[in-house]
């Protein structure tokens, strides 16, 4: 069964290439433009991995991450922060919320693909055992 990836970002310039990229890797992609929609989708469809921007209108990425992590049911959902907030302190803050990875914009496509693959193969192995 193909893995489900949720992309949460309000910028089209990011969503289009990344969506294409992920689909090329064989994943199903859902897109959310803001935090509320993202949470709706998460609770409805339970994606395997979330590519999460932080600077979103309304609820920001930090909150989304926190809410997901607070719910033990979603413990296996992988979260990768994909954001322009690149200061070291900001990275530390984000990681402390329980994200699995933190990618700073601008990134290389290869970087994203590699990380996603890495995180999803773990799960794959886990569920295998």
């Amino acid at each position, binding site marked *: 069964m193909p893995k489900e990836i949720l992309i949460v970002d309000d*910028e*089209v*310039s*990011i969503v*289009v*290439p*990344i969506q*294409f*990229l992920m689909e*090329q890797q064989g994943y199903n992609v859902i897109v959310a433009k803001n935090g509320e929609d993202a949470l709706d989708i998460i609770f409805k469809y339970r994606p395997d991995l979330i590519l999460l921007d932080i*600077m979103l209108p309304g*609820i920001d990425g*930090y*909150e989304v991450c*926190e809410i997901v*992590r*607070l719910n033990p049911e979603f413990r296996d959902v992988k979260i990768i922060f994909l954001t*322009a*907030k*690149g200061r*070291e*302190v*900001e990275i*530390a*803050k984000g990681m*402390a*919320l*329980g994200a699995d990875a933190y990618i*700073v*914009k*601008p*990134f*290389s*496509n*290869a970087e994203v693909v590699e990380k996603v693959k890495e995180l999803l193969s773990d799960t794959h192995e886990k569920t295998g055992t």
Partner: protein
Amino acid sequence: MKKRGHKFWQAIALSFAAGLIICVGIAVWIKTQLSPEAQTLLPGLLKDHFIPLFILVVLLLLVGAWFLDSILRQYIRPLRKIAEQISLVNPANPSHRFEIEGAAEIQQLCDQLNQGAAHYESLINNIGSRVNTARAQSEDEKNILAAIMSELPEGVIVCNPDGQILLYNNRAKLLLSGSGDDSREKPGRFIGLGRPIFGVFDENLIRHTIDQITDKLARDEPNVVSYFVSPGAENTLLRVEVVPVLNHRRQYSGLILILSDITRQLESQNYLNLSLQSFTRAIRASFAGIRSAIETILDYPDMDAGRLETLKKIIHKESLSIGNILERDPTLSSHAMFNQWPLVRVAVRDLFEMLQTRCLQSLNLHVHVEDLSTEHYVSVDHSSFLLAMLFVIQQIQTTTGVGELTCRLTPLRRFVGLDLLWAGHPIKADVWKAWETLPLVVEKEGLALTLREVIDHHNAEIGVYASRRLKDKFYVRFFLPVPYLMRPEKSRSITILPESRPEFYDFDMFLQPAQHPELESRKLAELTYTVFDLETTGLNPNEGDEIISIGAVRIVNGRLLQNERFEQLVDPRRSIPWTSVKIHGIHPEMLQGRPTVDEVLPMLHDFAKDTILVAHNAAFDMRFLQLKEQQTGVRFRNPVLDTLLLSAVVHPSHEDHNLESIAKRLGVRILARHTALGDAIATGEMFLKFLPLLSQQQILTLQEALAASRKTFYARQKF
């Protein structure tokens, strides 16, 4: 008629008694010595010539009385006046000359005394001129010092170990009280000689700073400076550098506070930080789009035309976007690059300890510190960061209702996490996000900065998390960068006073103990006074007369301070009779728009705080103040000395104790008579001249002065 003293009547009584004894004596003599014929003759003689004899006796008595009286007037009373006035020559008024009416001998005595006084005066002048020469030399130095002080772009305050201000420059005054019109000056922030520094800066802040300095001195550290940030006048932010003063024996003997206005720098720095951050982020975001798009194109050359077109358009759009961002170019104002709000290296252990104390003090909340095994350091501005932590703790307290918290240090790779843990309820994200935009105020102590601004300034971050290991435990974490580069702090060297103190302002106050409530036993010469005078619409406070002008000056350590004065016209809300306008020259038009007594009396109360009030005929002025107690809510509980009574204490034989006469006696010039400030100054100078005269009468303490005042005759007159 001239008042006759006790002595006169005593003399009369005495002469009567003497006369009586003589008569009795004569009678006895007649009875015993004269022959019986003469004895029987005598009553007959008396009876026949009774009337002339009687008249003779009365005349003799009158002559005796007149004789005694003239002796009194010619000799006794002038001698008493001389005795009193001698004390005037030395030391109050050396040019005083005796002009006393009396017998020729008295005049002679006066002449001799005047000669002596002339000698004395020339001696004083001689010494005086030598002292002046020496003074003139140090005057140059003083002027240089004064010029430097006034030219400094920074405010300077020097205070003694008890926190009394000894010296300050105008810039300090401006920074703290603003440059507004004096009549609108906010009470409570008076900066002045002898005033406590705690009235100017928060007491906790100063004490904490002093503790730090004492600590550093004890450890013999080379850099003994401490900083804090405090709000100034008119919404400014001041950076205060505190340097200890050591005497020549390297003992702590005072503090120098150097004030700089960092509002501008802070504003432009904040602006700079924010602009830079948003600039960088915007570039990152746009650039990400370009990179991702182009990499996709390169990696998938076979993609369909439609998608290719979209990606190309994305690249184009984002390139334009970056172009726009660069156009904006936050004009980096070059002078704002340096950091005026310094961060100091501090051990986390110390920081936690301070937090514990403050929490207990201000929030009554117990903070438990988790064991710190290793030494960790952070770079913070003590006061603002502590305040930030305190603020967050307070927010946690009010939101979740917890009664205690735990402090914990979590070392991360390039950061330290300072965690504040609590057990119980989590805090919703929108709640704690709102904290960041709130100004930092805890129990009335605060900064005009938001939590976010303080965090940003420390290059830190803050987040709220749920503990993953422990159930129902949550924490706020402050991420602080580890100071890996030891920036050498620009240090100021310790100021060491030379052994002979240069007299600029009042360094004697270095040794003076702090003012305590036990004022009554303090020496008059050491106390601080507020000399004041009121101009009113009339002389009847009980019948609706009102205050129209208040003038006051301060006497500190035996000196009248010319530049610390209080002068205020008051709107009496009633008409002013022409007779009083003629005296004080204040026309009703001059009082239009002036503050009323409700606004001015609290200011006077603050100006005179912790001092002794002095006024001429104080009963009159105090009555006005007392009648306003209900209306203004201001009670003057200061001890009061009346110069009119003190004059009667010092010169009881004189009868004229009005301002002009006393001034003439003491050699005080009154400028601006019948203005509140002019009279206050004259009263003050008079008061200072009374002090040595009082000490000659063994009146040295406040208690003794009050007791003596009460006793004098004029105290019987009441308003």
